[in-house]
């Protein structure tokens, strides 16, 4: 079976069949009452909820809020995280000094910082952005550091043999060499930032996709909750695909 050959378009339509099949099973389960339709809703109901959400205009407000928080958080992470990663990759004592903090942040369930952010920054977008920032920055720092350290030393020797200035060494060798790792880090960081934003909105806010889910969840209107999850999936997949596109453009020089 595994030796069968598949053509390129097979992945597309088989994948589509997979998704449609799953939706069909879900719809049938609800129609045939294999599970309580109140609890599992159904694809048709979710589509209706999605439509209502969009028509009311609330979808665009919620989506806008979430995207805004996401973009600010990831932007701040990149702004702080990339230089930090470069420093750690270049300077060994700096790496050793920051290492315990990075490791701690990488392994801690970062939501536990949420009450602190609420106390420091108040309920609202600021605390959410701070949480998402914390979620994403570690990944960016680690990837940047690994990227900088992974640069072929012979390229650095080559630049040095041409008497390269430190600035040139950085912008013409270090940065372009580390770029693929940095962009991959951004892609992973986006996924983590999305978790941060959604959790923050889930806990306390008055707008955003997480808020939508939490609001209808407590009212047991699960079609609306699923609609919210659907939009979150679209945001997550869309953003990671966008960065993948950027990645493939940036690393055209790789075989």
């Amino acid at each position: 079976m595994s030796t069968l050959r598949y053509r390129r378009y097979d992945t597309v339509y088989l994948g589509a069949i997979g998704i449609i099949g799953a939706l069909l099973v879900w719809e049938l389960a609800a129609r045939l009452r294999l599970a309580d339709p109140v609890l599992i809703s159904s694809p048709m109901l979710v589509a209706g909820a999605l439509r209502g959400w969009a028509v009311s205009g609330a979808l665009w407000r919620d989506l806008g809020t979430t995207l805004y928080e996401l973009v600010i958080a990831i932007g701040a992470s990149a702004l702080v995280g990339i230089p930090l990663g470069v420093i750690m990759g270049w300077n060994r004592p700096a790496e050793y000094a920051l290492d315990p903090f990075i490791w701690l942040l990488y392994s801690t369930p970062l939501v536990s910082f949420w009450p602190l952010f609420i106390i420091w920054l108040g309920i609202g977008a600021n605390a959410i952005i701070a949480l998402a920032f914390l979620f994403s920055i570690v990944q960016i720092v680690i990837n940047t550091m690994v990227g900088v350290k992974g640069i072929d030393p012979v390229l650095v020797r080559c630049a040095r043999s041409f008497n390269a200035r430190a600035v040139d060494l950085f912008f013409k060798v270090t940065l372009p060499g580390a770029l693929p790792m940095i962009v991959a880090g951004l892609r992973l960081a986006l996924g983590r930032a999305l978790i941060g934003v959604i959790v923050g909105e889930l806990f306390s806010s008055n707008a955003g996709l997480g808020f939508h889910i939490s609001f209808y969840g407590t009212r047991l209107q699960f079609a609306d909750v699923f609609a919210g999850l659907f939009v979150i999936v679209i945001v997550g997949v869309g953003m990671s695909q966008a960065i993948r596109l950027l990645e493939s453009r940036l690393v055209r020089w790789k075989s």
Partner: protein
Amino acid sequence: MLHIELKQIRVTFPQPEGGELLAVDRFDLQVQRGEFVTIVGPSGCGKSTLLSVVDGLVRSSSGQVHVEGMLVTGPGPDRALVFQEFALLPWRTVEGNIGLGLELQHKLSSRRIKELVLHYINMVGLQGFERHYPYQLSGGMRQRVGIARALAVNPEILLMDEPFAALDAQTREIMSVELLRIWEQDKKTVLFITHSIDESVYLADRVVVMSSRPGRVKEIIQVGLPRPRGLAIKDAPEFVRLRRHIWDLLEEEVRRQVDGKEDRA
């Protein structure tokens, strides 16, 4: 006219377990302007280290290198390195790589750099590949880029660190013919490291044979073969004789190295 002078060069490297490794010891050499000198030696004899010292990338523990009477303290525009690993920036095209050295020197306008790059692309025979990335080139073509990049900064001395070691045998021969063709045009001073005896004789005015570690000068051999040379010269009796002679010298060194290891074991 004396161009490069190495006096009593000694290089040591600190070892991770402590202690020091003596890589090169009491190395003396004088190279005349326009001379093509090759250095052969058993692997690990410190020949690449020696080249880095001449370039200024590595500091000798004692002894001095003078270029045109000036003490070498670091890399300079009068010397350019060609690397065994090619050391091309994978994200730059052929053009971009050849222009790298000129860019890093910040002396010329980007238009002038472009003109020069074009000139050297023609010189090494890479017309039509200007926009190719390194991964799209064969090994031989990559090293042509490496050579063009070194030549582009118009150095007085070309330092070549086993530049053809990563190439297959046939490409290697073609590249050494090409190198001589390019060298004949303006006869720069060349220091060329290799572990191929054939290559060392074919290219050189003088061959320096190094001892095994610590690297010292074992013997310097004058190559009297006429120039310009074609591959046919490898059949000349004089070529065969020199090759035989160097082979004997190196065999002695390799044996000594192996015996030394066995003694310790």
